[in-house]
């Protein structure tokens, strides 16, 4: 690992912090510094370091390299982000991927679920090795959107959750497009975005249609390209989808990023033959 630049907060740190930076990597140290930021004075080198060239902060990687590169490293922390798209476009899978990243680094996350659509079994499969950290996920089964709104506000005020997913997908009839006038108002999104900024929490809204308006830092539209089956016998292998960045403060928008969402089951089925080959060796 090359030595940190003297101008960076890592380079200026002395003693155990600098030693920790050498041993644990700058990513963990940056996460620590962001967490400690409320206790430090404003205008220090710390903020200048994290502000960067385009005002970026610590990022939450989505697991799609092309998308993360386009977003400058991932979804920004402390911001309201939105993913929308039609059914089977991969909104839930992308949110689960962000959830896995948050839980894997030891953070807490919350899933506010007014549609009561969160499936713990498939979430555990999708999280893979991070499934054991589901104990750090708080599932809020709100019954109405107002309950979801108040739950979101309360969780953001507690200032300790790295990611809060607000599932606004209208699942009673997922094919029907929810009216933009129903549910949250613009003032609600404004309040939530401010709370997310003060709590340094990534607030991720999932919806069928764009709902956050101009309050979101990042709006991502997903367009399904259809599933991919393997067989025979037929197995659902993956969902092919395309992400289009519809809104971003500092990044170019309207560029399509195709990617696929793999099924966690298919590689598992292929495992016995791998095991047999391994044992044979």
């Amino acid at each position, binding site marked *: 690992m090359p030595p940190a630049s003297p101008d960076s907060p890592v380079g200026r740190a002395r003693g155990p912090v600098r030693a*920790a930076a050498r041993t644990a990597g700058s990513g963990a140290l940056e996460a*620590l510094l962001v967490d400690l930021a409320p206790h430090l004075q404003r205008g220090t080198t710390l903020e200048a370091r994290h502000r960067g060239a385009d005002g970026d902060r610590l990022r939450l990687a989505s697991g799609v390299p092309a998308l993360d590169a386009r977003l400058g490293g991932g979804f920004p922390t402390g911001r309201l982000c939105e993913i929308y798209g039609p059914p089977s476009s991969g909104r839930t899978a992308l949110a689960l991927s962000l959830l896995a990243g948050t839980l894997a680094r*030891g953070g807490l996350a919350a899933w506010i679920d007014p549609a009561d659509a*969160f499936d713990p079994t498939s*979430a555990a*499969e999708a999280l893979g*090795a991070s499934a054991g950290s589901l104990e750090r996920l708080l599932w809020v089964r709100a019954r109405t959107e107002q309950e979801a709104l108040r739950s979101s506000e*309360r969780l953001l005020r507690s200032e300790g959750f790295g990611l809060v997913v607000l599932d606004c997908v209208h699942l009673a009839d997922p*094919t029907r497009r929810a009216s933009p006038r129903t549910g949250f108002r613009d003032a609600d999104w404004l309040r939530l975005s401010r709370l997310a900024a003060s709590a340094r929490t990534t607030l991720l809204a999932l919806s069928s249609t764009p709902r956050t308006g101009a309050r979101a830092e990042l709006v991502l539209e997903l367009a399904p390209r259809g599933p991919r089956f393997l067989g025979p016998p037929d197995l*659902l292998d993956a969902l092919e989808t395309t992400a289009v960045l519809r809104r971003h403060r500092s990044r170019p928008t309207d560029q399509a990023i195709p990617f696929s969402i793999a099924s966690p089951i298919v590689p598992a089925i292929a495992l016995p033959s791998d095991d047999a080959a391994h044992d044979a060796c």
Partner: protein
Amino acid sequence: MLGESPEAGGRRRIACLLVPDLPLHAALRVEPELRGAPLAIADGPGARARLLAVSPEARAQGVEAGATLPQARASCPGIELRVASPGLERSARETLLDLGLSLAPRAELAGRDAGPFVAEGAVYVDADGSAALHGRESGFASVLAARAERAGLPGVVAIASTRALARLAARQLAYVPRPSRPPPREAGGASRVEEAPQPERAEASIRILPVGRELEQLGPLPIDLLDPDDRTAQALTRFGIHRIRDLLRLPRRDLAARLGPELLALVARARGEAIEPPIAMPRATQLEEELDLEAPIDRLEPLAFVLRGLTSRLVERLTLRGLGCEALDWTLRLVDGRRLVRRTGVAAPTVDDRVLLRLLRLALESEPPPAAVEGVSLGCEGVPLRREQLDLFLPRGPAPSELDRTLAELTALCGEGRVGRPEALDDHRPDAFTIGAFRPDRSRKAPPPPTSGSPGRSVGLGAPRSGPEPARRRSRLPRPRPGDPAASSTRPPASPRLGLRALRPPLRARVRLHDGRPVFLRSAVSRGEIVAVAGPWRTTGHWWSESAHFAVDQYDVQMSDGCVLRLCFDWRTKRWQVDGLYD
């Protein structure tokens, strides 16, 4: 032998914190707005009740303890009268004990006296070694007196070799007017008081009796401070014995022969010769605050106001003892005679009264009392506080108290059982899950390898087959092996994995089959041709239970409108349904 003390060679020192008008201050703790007003506490309702304690403002207008209520009103028409509350007085006495334990490991409450000292409350505190901690014993006494005043129980503190002598000196401070004299010069340094005896302290609220010189200083005190019984007091008065030194000068044997053996106990107390066991170390940490309401309360807001005062006083006492509250036990006494006993848990021991009050309010709002409340009791078991240890490389989570308050509010908002940690059950029934308590473990340890079947969906290939019991039908998700990096890593998957949006309850569907495979679907989720089908995946289990038996065939289908659904045929009900949507 006036100046002789049986403890002259010992190091035992006992402090006595004495509050002369305990019922008065117990009432003022609850109604602080009455400070500065003429106030009197009666021993009961009705015109024949007598005053137990009066405030200085009432005393200045001629009201004395022992007077009846009409006499008090005649002397001071604007006097505020309150009936003594046993619950309030008990809480105040326990607060005295907490004050003692805030400075020393050993303290005990003094027994309640009768007669003229019925209104006083006292606590004995082990003051051994206090001079080393506070510079001198007077420093210890000053801190104790200051804490008592801050807790709303202003009193006097005296330190002597025995409980009786300490209490006697405290009574002198509390009841005997002191002649004004210039304050003595303070001796510098942190020398022990036993080595540099000081005759008297200038402060009006503390007094230190040097070892061996107690009787010399207490001798001039009136003998009434020893609280003799009426017969003995009359006899002593008849003989012209008014001061303690007069009593101690008399030969002990003749005294007993003439006035009875009861006088020997009095003399032993005055000399400090009474046998006193060491002060015990209290082990019980149960704290309780009570309040009897003047008028029943049937609304939540006034009741919450009452609870705020109780919580505040309870937290003050916990703070004094360096403890935290892990669960609140509260009792509401209703007007119909019922007692509503409840317990409200706290995630982590706390002394934040706002957190406790919020939890109480949420509990009250979720289950209001069925009748008006006429008495409230709030208690808790004091437990050591846990200090939050921040991890150097883990994100900062919410404080335990804040997290607990958040969870309580979310539960009150969304309902019981709807907020918590998702848990997939080790069961192959469709949509088998539960919600557990959210107690996040912030350590970044690797998840334990699955010892039993993964809670995932069972996967079958080819034609449906009836399988054995679910315990033998494991998911075929890869199992981590020892030495496998994936087994010990908590890294998330490299790319997004397919997720399922559940439909609860599953949506009814109509399916058209062709050659045994679904080709057309009509449901509220999607309607149209089925473009591609994977499956069926047969899952069955719990055949031994009529109610829990399940047997389903699941299909992954792609609809013509692009939706990818999980379609299910229930063999028991012979119905098709849509379980979820891949997304």
